[in-house]
């Protein structure tokens, strides 16, 4: 019998709002503990929540980006449970009527294209953070995070493999980053994932008993945790056993799942409508405005890049990874750089420079106009590609104009035959073994020798001329 896994996920995203969901405290990560708190978010007696409209806008855009149906009338609810990091003893969330339902996400799956239904999107507040100090034998609570705005996205159980889950999450993360609704930084807890998983014989329409995996804070973690759990469930089922419904916590350090104490999961949340807040009423106009304000989404942009610029899949994927990189590329194209050439420079040297400087395409000091100028100098043979990379590094650090830097640093491409011949003969003398291998028919070694000449020239030599010179010399004796 063939078996398949059935997986649904719940994703919590921290919305990128300046303030918390129900008060005016700033929503910041990494501040000194309890420096961004007020009577509302620590639940002092008499304090009342006031909804942050920006959080609603971002949640609305997120829901629209996933093609959801928007509920013009959604409601707030209290979800009750006792835990020290939950100040009011309840979380304000949306239960009966969430802001959006019935969406979908298309992602690249193991079988070409995958489609995941979105069951619901709702807005809720986060809890504080409990810190256990083993040395002190005590616990402390940081309420800076308490009351920050989250959206929870719940999928239908449409996923079948851990790889697909990862790929779906990638698509989701990229989309949310595109619309600027969340930073999606998992280390900072901006994106948290829970997964429900069960197994069943292929072809069966019934769902097996599921387990819930919680506490995963990386995409690779969720993939690993799911693989482990699916393997466990399968071996259990194949032996004729039954999967028990339970909650499992992922331990990232040990790469293992541990069972949550049954007491921890036996919560009855006693949901009821939040009396301190009016229902969330949206107008059709607001929805239309949010739709209009959505940028081109990653999937559409990727498709357009392939079509319009005739790019390879890989280049289109890399260029559209973030909206800023895609914008940068299109700025280059806009100043008449050939799309394929622009793609090569952006995905290669520029990406390397951004990684090195920890900048994105918006903040990197080598702006598209300057980059375009440099590319043109390469095309005209004024500077070699490798020298151009050196120019980029200088541009990123000191700014300036490419031509000035080339001139000042003597980076212009060397095309003087006498000088080039000196470098070539020097290299041939230095690598006799490679020379004889070439002569024995190992022609590929030529590239290595070209590289050595380029090194000797400090990147200044014109590689085309070097190559021809080398061939001449090697064949010539």
């Amino acid at each position: 019998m063939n078996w398949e896994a059935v997986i649904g996920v719940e994703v919590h995203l921290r919305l990128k709002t300046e303030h918390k969901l129900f008060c005016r405290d700033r929503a910041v990560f990494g501040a000194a503990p309890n420096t961004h708190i007020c009577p509302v978010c620590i639940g002092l007696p008499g304090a009342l929540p006031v909804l942050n409209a920006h959080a609603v806008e971002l949640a609305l855009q997120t829901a629209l980006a996933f093609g959801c149906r928007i509920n013009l009338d959604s409601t707030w609810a209290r979800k009750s449970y006792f835990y020290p990091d939950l100040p009011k003893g309840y979380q304000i969330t949306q239960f009966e009527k969430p802001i959006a339902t019935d969406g979908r996400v298309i992602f690249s799956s193991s079988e070409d294209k995958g489609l995941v239904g979105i069951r619901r999107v709702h807005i809720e507040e986060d809890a504080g953070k409990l810190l256990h100090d083993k040395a002190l034998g005590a616990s402390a609570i940081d309420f800076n995070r308490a009351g920050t705005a989250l959206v929870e996205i719940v999928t239908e159980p449409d996923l079948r493999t851990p790889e697909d889950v990862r790929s779906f999450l990638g698509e989701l993360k990229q989309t949310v980053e595109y619309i600027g609704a969340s930073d999606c930084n998992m280390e900072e807890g901006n994106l948290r994932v829970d997964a429900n998983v069960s197994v069943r014989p292929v072809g069966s329409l019934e769902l097996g008993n599921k387990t819930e995996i919680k506490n995963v804070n990386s995409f690779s973690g969720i993939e690993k945790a799911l693989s482990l759990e699916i393997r466990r469930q399968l071996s259990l089922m194949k032996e004729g056993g039954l999967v028990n419904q339970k909650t499992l916590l992922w331990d990232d350090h040990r790469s293992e799942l541990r069972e949550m104490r049954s007491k921890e999961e036996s919560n009855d949340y006693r949901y009821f409508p939040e009396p301190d807040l009016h229902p969330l009423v949206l107008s059709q106009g607001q929805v239309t405005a949010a739709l209009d304000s959505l940028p081109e989404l990653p999937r559409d942009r990727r498709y357009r890049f392939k079509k319009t610029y005739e790019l390879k899949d890989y280049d289109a994927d890399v260029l559209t990874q973030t909206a800023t990189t895609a914008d940068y590329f299109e700025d280059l194209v806009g100043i008449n750089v050939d799309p394929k050439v622009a793609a090569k420079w952006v995905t290669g040297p520029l990406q390397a420079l951004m990684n090195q400087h920890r900048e994105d395409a918006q903040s990197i000091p080598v702006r598209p106009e300057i980059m375009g100028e440099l590319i043109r100098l390469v095309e005209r043979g004024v500077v070699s590609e490798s020298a151009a990379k050196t120019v980029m590094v200088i541009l990123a650090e000191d700014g300036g104009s490419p031509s000035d830097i080339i001139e000042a640093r003597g980076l212009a491409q060397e095309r003087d035959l006498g000088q080039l011949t000196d470098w070539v003969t020097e290299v041939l003398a230095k690598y006799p073994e490679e020379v004889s291998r070439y002569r024995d028919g190992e022609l590929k070694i030529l590239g290595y020798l070209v590289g050595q000449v380029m090194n000797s020239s400090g990147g200044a030599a014109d590689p085309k001329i070097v190559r021809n010179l080398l061939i001449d010399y090697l064949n010539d004796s």
Partner: protein
Amino acid sequence: MTLQDKVQRSRLYDTAGLDLAPKSLTQVKKTENSSEGLNVFLSLAEPEDLVPRAQGDLTGVMVAVKDNICTEKLPTTCGSLVLKGYQSPYEATAIRKLREAGAVIIGKTNLDEFGMGSSTENSAFGPTLNPIDQSFVPGGSSGGSAAAVAAGYTRMALGSDTGGSVRQPAAFCGVVGIKPTYGRVSRYGLVAFASSLDQIGTIGATVLDASLLLEVISGHDIRDTTSVERLVPSYRDAATQSIEGMVVGIPSEYFPDELDPSIRAILDEACERLVDAGARVQPISLPHTEFAIPCYYILATAEASSNLARYDGVRFGTRMPSDGLDQMYELTRHHFGSEVQRRIILGTYVLSAGYYDAYYAKAQKARARISQDFKTAFQEVDIIFTPTSPTPAFALGERISDPLAMYLSDVFTVPANLAGIPGISVPIGMVGGLPLGGQFLGPWWGESELIAAAGALEASYGDNT
């Protein structure tokens, strides 16, 4: 003290000739510390706190404040051991408005713990005594505030009304109490009991006092999204407005056969006075009244169980030392009094999985019916007149061990909270040496009409002296 005495006394308070606040504070302290003390205050201001911060409608006027409204100077205990000594770091919006009008806070008044009760006997700090007769309760839960005014300590006091907690004690103490429309006064800084029902209300020696105080604290507040942006009319002017032509509905459900004949006689007399003042009286029906009490005790306890979850010993208030988290919760929350514990358990029960539809959801439907009753009635009549409570004040200890009998003393006040409409209680006579209150209920935002009617009634008694 007779009603006439009281009315006359209240007439002595003239806006022009106020007592100097610090002198009165000393007198209040002296009386409260003597054998005549009524246990009205849980904390009292220092003389230096009685300097007005602003000039306004209430410059120098001392106001007593129920101890579930947050103040920066005095503790806010809610009459509970759980909040014993708790000092709020911020001030309620209503208090800020009082200060901006020049008022000073004389002290924080006793109450049934978290507003849960009808006699002020549920306070962790002992009951307050009724100033009219000290063997009787002052009503509740704003018993301290009503007693403060009835005893002549202050002309005005703030209370809160979730199911009658301003109007019922006002009636029991022979003073005036207003519960405004839900959303009229900001709840920011009012410690929540049942959020969808709670409203800060005012208590005054006269209709004018209570109305002026209401005018000062009313209005929209960005910190309470359930407060409503709507013009605040001159409630003090309403107190002397004519009620010529006003149609007053008399709901049969509020005049049951069991009503004591002497009480009925006083109510009838009040109706005659209204007619004399130019109003027309008309019988009406509010058919869903009988569901009000069960509906209220489901919704109010459900909300209370949630609102009181924050008293866990983690961030503020009482925390009991313990071996672990569960024990800390348990020992800390054992400091709630028995009535509060009872309501938390009830509320937790009605919200539990499997019971929600049978209780909470059904009660919401009953609430809508009760609202609809009023909507229908107010198409026919301008205001409604009822007794505030089925009886005058009961004796201390009489109902404390019978929660149901206690709950029934709110039977005529609870419907207004469920519907969110305003109500006012005004003295209409004495029964067995105890004051009796009459209640006017009005349509949403109909405070002015209620105040006018109560003012007319009050004036008619004044004319008799």
